[in-house]
């Protein structure tokens, strides 16, 4: 289904922030803002929920730690206990100090990689993915605010005209 969207282009992050606040104050829903670099406070101004990636990373780290403990307990203590250098491997607790480095490494390994994979999947980033920014300038020095039009084209136009936009595009999406 073809829907109409309005793209307002800005060439300064501060001007963009003012525009976002103004559009939000006028109770319009901002569909998206495409930026060439992170603008601090933009997510709050747009009303985006905070990201939970850090929490997932903590959980993945816990998984990594458990994997390391279970793995080393099985391999060194249960499956084939050996006496290496006069230090017998018959008790996990007593042998644990030697396992700490790998417990740490696997915690970091799981926390880092699984978080990044989650980020890629949630933000839909992978090789051969087509870029979806509306204009090539949005990776250079322009910011594009996208607002969907629901029969209020004139109203939106008037609102955006004096927000300092450098260009306003109205396109079928």
């Amino acid at each position, binding site marked *: 289904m*073809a829907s109409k969207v309005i793209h307002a282009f800005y060439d300064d*992050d*501060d001007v963009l922030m003012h525009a976002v606040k103004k559009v939000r104050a006028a109770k319009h829903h901002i569909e*998206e*803002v*495409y930026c*060439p*670099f*992170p*603008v*601090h*406070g933009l*997510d709050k101004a747009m009303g*985006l929920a905070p*990201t939970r*990636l*850090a929490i997932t*990373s903590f959980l993945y*780290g816990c998984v990594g730690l458990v994997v390391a403990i279970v*793995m080393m307990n099985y*391999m*060194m203590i249960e499956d*084939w206990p050996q006496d*290496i250098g006069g*230090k017998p491997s018959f008790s996990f607790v007593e*042998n644990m100090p030697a396992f700490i*480095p*790998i417990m740490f*490494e*696997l915690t*970091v*390994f799981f*926390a*880092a990689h699984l*978080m*990044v994979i989650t*980020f890629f999947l*949630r*933000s839909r*980033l*992978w090789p*051969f993915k*087509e*870029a*979806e920014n509306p204009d*090539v300038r*949005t*990776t*250079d*020095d322009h910011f594009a605010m996208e607002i969907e039009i629901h029969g209020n084209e004139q109203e939106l136009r008037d609102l955006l005209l004096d*927000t*300092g*936009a*450098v*260009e*306003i*595009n*109205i*396109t*079928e999406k």
Partner: protein
Amino acid sequence: MASHYEAPIRKPLVLGDKSYHDVTVDIAAPIEGKANKSWWIAFSIALAAFIWGVGCIIYTISTGIGTWGLNKTIGWAWDITNFVWWVGIGHAGTLISAVLLLFRQKWRMAINRSAEAMTIFSVMQAGLFPLIHMGRPWLAYWVLPIPNQFGSLWVNFNSPLLWDVFAISTYLSVSLVFWWTGLLPDFAMIRDRAVKPFQKKIYSLLSFGWSGRAKDWQRFEEVHLVLAGLATPLVLSVHTIVSFDFATSIVPGWHTTIFPPYFVAGAIFSGFAMVNTLLIIMRKVSALEDYITVQHIELMNIVIMLTGSIVGCAYITELFIAWYSGVEYEQYAFLNRATGPYWWAYWAMMTCNVFSPQFMWFKKLRTSIMFSFFISIVVNIGMWFERFVIIATSLHRDYMPSAWTMFSPTYVDIGTFIGTIGFFFVLFLLYARTFPVIAQAEVKTIMKSSGEKYKKLRDAGKPLYQISTARPVIIEKGPITDDVLMGEEVPLKDDKVGLAELLDALGTFDPTKQEADNLQQIKGIGPQMEATLNQIGIFTFEQVARMTVKEYELLDAITESFPGRAQRDDWAGQARILNNKK
């Protein structure tokens, strides 16, 4: 915005009158331009060294480790020296990108990309040495805890060498994803500037379809912060575990409890020296002096001075503890280092690592580019000797004097080491030509706080931005028609309609009132192109300065020569500057 405030006493990190677009152009320039002669010379030398190293490795593997200078007393020498040296160099990259991120040091942004690249490339070199030292590298997977044909025989998790396997592979892979996620927006920038279809395809593949949505940026920043938090203890753990390879043994000279912090400080020390070596050349070759400033070099020199002094303290502590322990074997190991047959290696280490960084107390010396480069090389050499001293001189005189011996490297030892240096530079030189070498998206975020342009505006009490009251251009685009898709609306060569449209936008040249400019002053315009432009009716800088993407495309279609050239060289920007100078 108040968040852009930075104390006026802080020196600008981005010099010159740079706008956001200028940052894009400057950082894309080395990728979009052609390699010069010195790049090809450097690349050929590195490639030759690399091929020589490959030959030595093939000879080692096909014949055996006997081709090295090792003997029954000295079982570890150049191979492990090189391994530790390369791993250590890698540490600076993570330190710059992770630790300095946690400390909110803005100066890291100009150097983190290259420092991380250095990390990845040097850890790759490091990994080669244990691999070829195995003798049968095709059985390298035996170090992994996987079920195997020997019944339930598992790897030994008590062994520091196995800890190393986990530490180095975690380090390499986490550094790689840290580097790559940071690269996505910058690859997207290159992708969106690319004019040739092949480049566009490659960079859109590399950028994973990055679109720069507000939500993506929010996640991106969170991921970076968490990765920095994870990488900081990780980088400390890696060289700690490398030092365990020695410290958990009972060899006098290796059995030392200060090894972990001492190795980590040494790793940062050598890594910053290598970053200085690489970036002092790169800022010059790639014309990035406005981003990698003398201040950056000075700050790195201060880190070198600090970590070098920590290393110096560690050397002296070792000597003191050897004496204080009362263990005669321990005492002999250190006496032998300083006064035995390898005294020259010990004193080379002391001079390069403890003495030479002390020059950095003088501001004049640490802000001198030539001197910084010289010291960075000295430190690299010194840190190689440190590892050689620890490894070889601790082994060459063991408990049994009849087994005492010396180590002399064969040409295979030397060739393999030189080969890894070649491999490293092959990778780094390719990186410098194809990757955005500065994290431009991050640099743009500090422009308003630390860019010279905005700092001057702030000092003058002027606003950093103005909401323009000029009416914006409104463009209504209908659904994309077949005509556009089939390319039928593009003007053809020597198309009169296209010409008229182009001159409409640029303004016509009136020979009675105006004077023609020398358009060849613009980089990218040669005599032939100037003639073509004159033929069309473009004679002045003023006209060229009015060109935008639309006009560039029209021009390309009309002239059919050098497509994309004008946009890449930013003719309009150049013409604007030249016009102002007139």
